[in-house]
Each structure stands twice: as structure tokens, then as C-alpha cells.
């Protein structure tokens, strides 16, 4: 019985991971990632900063691949190239080459999301490739190709989100953070300096905030996998990241995390939302 249950759970996992669905969410992730890659790395990758042929090649590869990724032209190849370029920037130039300004948490998240995006058919929607496919079908008198594809890449993005929340919450499970002291220290470092107004009210507020953050992170680590929790948890997650974005120098971290929520949400729901915002695009698909 236990074996059967185990087998059925495994079969369910395989079916879930291998399921197909709308390609609209991954297309939105692709477009958002291209913008975030420019926001984070664009200035550093300008050719005037490139010292040596290798960095020139990397810069050219970066801008060409991300531009094609953004507009969705030869999208699979462009996204795969962007993933290779960004992984080279992170591991090759950053980690191995000692350019540690390129290996912060937000850089890793961008790199990881780009690699995972390259595993998706993210060019089947909201892309020039889509327009060309429709034109080809129209020319041949064939039905418009479906905007559907494997959801594996989105599932892996969900795993990345879950891992970040889980390990971030585990890291905070120590008295220094849960007491609120570490939040006070952050406030002191970034805002108040040595004039931090320590006192009972601040201690209580910091401790409540600290416990709430840890509880929310643990909830999100589990909740991203549980669609029923999304309606409550994802807005709270967006609020958390918005607050972090405004209060701390998180660079592209918050925006990337919220962008990856598109991988978590049920794909048809994302497609419906896009159709509501851009009804003409929806009509064109029909």
C-alpha cells in the first residue's frame, strides 16, 4: 500500500513537472528578465568598460542576446545565449575572476532565472517569433499554433523562489534576529547611525517585525507550491519585497522575486489577466 502510495505520489510529481500549459507567463518572465538584466548589468557592460577581447565579446553577446530576448526574435537561441553569457559573467568573471561586485545575491538570482527561462519555450507568446508563426500559419492556411508548452522551467523557478525563502528564513532563526536587534542594527547602519533611538517601543516593534518576516518567509517557502495559499501569501510577498525595495539597497532583487511570482501563479490565470489588459492581442490569438 505504502509502495503504491509512493508510486502514485511520484507519478503525480512527474505529471505535474512535465505538464504543459500557457506560454504567456514565461514570455512575461522573459521580457521582465531582459529589462532587469539591463538595469543591473547594462552600465557595466557598455563597451567602454570592456578591457580585452573577451570582455568585448561578452558585452556584445550580452546586449545582442538580451535585445533579441526582449523582443522575442529567435527567442530560444537568444535566451540560451543570454543565459550562457550571464552565467559566464557570474561564475567566470565574478566568482573565478574575483570581480565580487558581480556575485551578490541579486546577481545570482538574475543569472539563475535567466538560465531557467532558457529551459522554457518562452518565445511562443508575446514575441516577434509568435507574429512570424501566425503569419506562416496564415500563409499556409493552417490554424494558429497553440501558445502552449512544457511548464518545467516555471516549476524550477518556483523551486528557486522556495529555496530563497526557506534558506533566508532559516538564516534568521537566531536570537539576534528574532529579538529585533538585527533589524535595529540595519536601521542604524542605513538611517540613524549611532543616534539610533533604542528603547522599549522600538524593541517591541522590531521584534514583531522580525518574527513576522520569518513567519512570512517560511509560509512563502511552502506556499509557492500551494495554489490555495497564493491569494493571501503572494500579495503579502509583494508587500514585503516592495518594502525592502524602498528601504534597503536590494538593487534588482525585489523586482526579480516579484517577477518570478509569474512562474508560481496558475498559467491560465496569467493568460486571462494578460488578455484583459491587452484584449486585441487576445483576439489576434483567437
Amino acid at each position, binding site marked *: 500500500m505504502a509502495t503504491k502510495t509512493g508510486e502514485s505520489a511520484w507519478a503525480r510529481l512527474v505529471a505535474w513537472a512535465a505538464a504543459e500549459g500557457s506560454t504567456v507567463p514565461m514570455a512575461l518572465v522573459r521580457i521582465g528578465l531582459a529589462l532587469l538584466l539591463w538595469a543591473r548589468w547594462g552600465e557595466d557592460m557598455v563597451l567602454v568598460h570592456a578591457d580585452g577581447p573577451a570582455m568585448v565579446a561578452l558585452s556584445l553577446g550580452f546586449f545582442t542576446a538580451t535585445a533579441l530576448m526582449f523582443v522575442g526574435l529567435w527567442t530560444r537561441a537568444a535566451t540560451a545565449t543570454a543565459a550562457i553569457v550571464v552565467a559566464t559573467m557570474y561564475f567566470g568573471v565574478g566568482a573565478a575572476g574575483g570581480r565580487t561586485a558581480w556575485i551578490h545575491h541579486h546577481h545570482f538570482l538574475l543569472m539563475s532565472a535567466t538560465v531557467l527561462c532558457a529551459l522554457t519555450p518562452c518565445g511562443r507568446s508575446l514575441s516577434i517569433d509568435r507574429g512570424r508563426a501566425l503569419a506562416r500559419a496564415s500563409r499556409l492556411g493552417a490554424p494558429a499554433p497553440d501558445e502552449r508548452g512544457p511548464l*518545467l522551467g516555471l516549476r*524550477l523557478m518556483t523551486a528557486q523562489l522556495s*529555496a530563497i525563502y*526557506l534558506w*533566508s528564513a532559516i*538564516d534568521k532563526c537566531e536570537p*539576534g534576529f528574532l*529579538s529585533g536587534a538585527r533589524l535595529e542594527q540595519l536601521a*542604524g547602519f542605513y538611517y540613524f547611525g*549611532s543616534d539610533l533611538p533604542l528603547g522599549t517601543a522600538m524593541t517591541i516593534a522590531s521584534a514583531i517585525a522580525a518574527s513576522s518576516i520569518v513567519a512570512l518567509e517560511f509560509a512563502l517557502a511552502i506556499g509557492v507550491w500551494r495554489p490555495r495559499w497564493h491569494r493571501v501569501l503572494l500579495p503579502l510577498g509583494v508587500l514585503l519585497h516592495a518594502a525592502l525595495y524602498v528601504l534597503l539597497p536590494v538593487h534588482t532583487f525585489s523586482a526579480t522575486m516579484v517577477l518570478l511570482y509569474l512562474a508560481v501563479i496558475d498559467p491560465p490565470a496569467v493568460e486571462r489577466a494578460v488578455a484583459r489588459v491587452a484584449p486585441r492581442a487576445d483576439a489576434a490569438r483567437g
Partner: protein
Amino acid sequence: MFVAVAAGLLLIPAYRQLFGGRSRFVRDWELFNEVGVGLVVAEFSVRDGQGREAPIDRYAALGRERATAPRWLRTMTGEAGLMRVAGELCARLGSVDLRARARIATMRGWVLLHAGEHDLCRPLPPRPQIPGTRPRGHEDR
């Protein structure tokens, strides 16, 4: 493939966060982990001959305004940072008995650094080092 990649994403941070490994090639998720460690929050006062203390504003005493004060004055870091400000105050105020109530930020929370027990304008007696007042070195450098 899904299981292998997902397991990697979920388990690899353990190398750094659970087992203490240090590698630039492995990402932990210890966000803003050591920021603020070593920060000193202090109030200064001058003690008179009768033991009465009068608080002093370090900015006013040094003829500065907080908004334009240098970083070492606004954000004291480590006991050395506190003593630097104390040294400036002693030089400006002349022969005074300068006291401080100060706490220092560690990963475990706030730790008392001075409770007004010493005149900071005189050499301090040897004191035990407070553990955890410097970053642990978890950041990639």
C-alpha cells in the same frame, strides 16, 4: 532532470549555511547578514566633581551639524570608533570627566560596551574583547 535541478536549488545553500563552507561558486541566502555589526550606539555625558552627569550632544560639542557631520561622527563603528569620537570630545572640551553609555551591535544582539564606568579622557584599563563585534566573513570578498 526536474528533481535533480530542483534538489540542487533547494539543497546547495546548505553547503554554506549549515556546513560553513565558503565558496564564491555556491550561493547562500544570508541576505544583509552582517550589515550593521559593530555599530555603536552611545550617549556621552560629562561628570562633575559631585558625580552629577550632564548629557552632551557630540555634534554640538564638536561644532558640527548632524546632516553634514563626517561618517565617523555619525556612525561609530567598533570600540575604536567610539574612542575616536571620545578623543575628539576630550580635545575640544579640555580637562573633563567624559563618560559614555554605549552598546555595540553583534550578530547575537546588542551588547553593553560602556556603562559610564570609565573616564574616556583617561587611558582605559585592559578590557576583555567582546566577541562578535566584527563581521564573520560570510560575505564574498
